[in-house]
């Protein structure tokens, strides 16, 4: 595809999602550009996760079309779909690691399925991913039940990155983490995006995350989305958006970001803090 369309990796067009009589999304449009971090925010029950799940293909919408990397997600056949899945990485809320496998084996599940390679190389690649997400070396041999919540998220991220996807979907990546671990996780996502050239789409409630790493934010209000940069949203007169970004937590996060910006050069150089 030529010109400008080339850097749109996800195109959601006139999407409608309904549960029974209740409409969650009413003709929603959303475009995500290559290499950006797109945050999806909204009140509880506005369908952040539903939107994410619809784009991934886990939820079939009532109407509309979704194009990811130029493929029509809703009308693709099995083979095309499988091909497409290899370009996605998804981090579920609590990691969704397979509880009967170790972390390393979890990371090897997609490798084993899609890329035949010698066992030793597979173990090496899994160990590399464990290191990249900032887990200690012996974490690969542990079972999910032996890890803390923060470590499970990192392990889930390592599995999501197993196939070196182009697009990373994160569902509430920092929910349930302490502020230090959450900040470290934000930094990790930012680093990985820069080094791996990822496009990241995340549903989140965490204002600090939004201010720290999101390039643009899609706000779900009144069954529609309003997409823009944070600066644009801060000007938006819509009462919910005002309350969201200008509430006490929003102001604190903005203030935190200006402080962090001063110290960002030193913060980026530091290795991710283990949680």
């Amino acid at each position: 595809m030529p010109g400008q369309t080339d850097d749109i990796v996800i195109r959601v067009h006139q999407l409608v999602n309904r549960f029974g009589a209740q409409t969650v999304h009413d003709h929603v449009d959303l475009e995500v550009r290559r290499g950006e971090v797109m945050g999806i925010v909204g009140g509880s029950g506005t369908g952040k996760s539903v939107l994410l799940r619809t784009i991934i293909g886990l939820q079939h919408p009532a109407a509309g079309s979704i194009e990811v990397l130029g493929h029509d997600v809703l009308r693709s056949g099995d083979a095309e779909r499988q091909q497409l899945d290899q370009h996605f990485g998804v981090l579920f809320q609590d990691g969704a690691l397979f509880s009967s496998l170790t972390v390393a084996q979890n990371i090897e599940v997609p490798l084993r399925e899609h890329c035949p390679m010698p066992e030793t190389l597979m173990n090496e690649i899994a160990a590399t991913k464990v290191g990249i997400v900032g887990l200690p070396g012996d974490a690969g041999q542990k079972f999910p039940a032996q890890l803390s919540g923060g470590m499970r998220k990192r392990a889930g991220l390592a599995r999501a990155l197993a196939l070196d996807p182009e697009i990373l979907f994160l569902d509430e990546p920092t929910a349930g983490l302490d502020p230090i671990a959450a900040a470290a996780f934000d930094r990790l996502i930012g680093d990985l995006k820069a080094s791996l050239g990822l496009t990241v789409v995340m549903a989140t409630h965490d204002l600090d995350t939004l201010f720290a790493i999101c390039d643009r934010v899609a706000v779900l209000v009144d069954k529609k989305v309003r997409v823009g940069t944070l600066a644009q949203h801060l000007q938006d007169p819509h009462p919910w958006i005002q309350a969201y970004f200008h509430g006490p937590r929003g102001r604190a996060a903005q203030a935190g970001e200006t402080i962090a910006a001063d110290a960002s050069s030193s913060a980026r150089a530091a290795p991710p803090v283990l949680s």
Partner: protein
Amino acid sequence: MSPTATFVAAPDQDGLVLRAEGDWLLASAAELDRRLRALDLPSGRQVTLDLGGIERLDTAGAWLLKRTDDELAARGNAVGLTNVRANLAPLLDQVWTHAAGAVLPHPVPPHHTLTGFVARIGEVTLRLLRRAYSIIGFGGLVAETFAKLLRHPRRLRLPALFAQMEQAGVNAMPIVGLLSFLIGVVFAYQGADQLRRFGAEIYTVNLLGIAILRELGVLLTAIIIAGRSGSAFTAQIGTMQVNEEIDALRTLGLDPVEVLVVPRILGLALTLPLLAVYADFMGLLGGCLMSWASLGILIPTFLDQLRSAIGEWTFWVGIVKAPFFAGIIALVGCYEGFNVERSADSVGRLTTQSVVEAIFLVILADAAFSILFSLLHI
């Protein structure tokens, strides 16, 4: 372009250049791995990794470069990178800083040897004894809660009790009825086939009456209920355990045994005898219809013969066992539910275990009842 890694002599003095070209991606990692391992690595030289020819790179490719770098360094070479394109630098940086030093093997399940086999028998036996001890303990806890409820009967949760009775009793009627009916049919058919050879077809009715009323009706019902409700109890309580709902109950000042276990045990103890009566009836109905169809025994004749065949205790001998079976099934089901750990895996494992244990204990209890009744000459 397909990926390659080739050694060429450097233009200057004694140095070597390893030139990487093409796509160094996950898809070509297996091929690259093979090529790199086939290389005859030098030692004690000046080696330069020339990355100028790399078109695309991902973590798998970057790891292979890092591994080669490490291996060369381990052989005493002085290694350097050249021609690193600016857009690849962050990724290489990431892998160079975070790649694991040593790759640890997956945990391997222990080997099966003869000593291991014997040790396993011992372990399993000890575990069984511990479980028996702990089930008895749980039974005591439940009994204590029942005693408390006897003193404060108003604390019994009637809505929960009725919900359990509906779920475990009323909703089980179709399957219990159908299976009992079919067993009656099969029994009458097989019995008639054998007894006809002696001209004693009419005794098919005696066989049916005794077998169904004394044993089959109640045992069949108990086994179906163990599979249906015992497993449901484990899964329900187990899922609550996973969601920390049980802990939530405790912190709210509610006793999980009183809230969850008592209605289930009581509900099953009240419904299983009723279900057994129903199963008796359906079994006899099936037998009656089959006797009529295959032996031509008319219904009034069937009833007369049945009346003469069964004693005053035959029916009660079957039914009296039902509440005990119900207690076993519900107790085991709830006990296993509380044993669930915080993983989806353990819910499934313990649900299976609860059904197997409940059926085993029900049949064991049935055997014990047989001995008891024979001692009592009933």
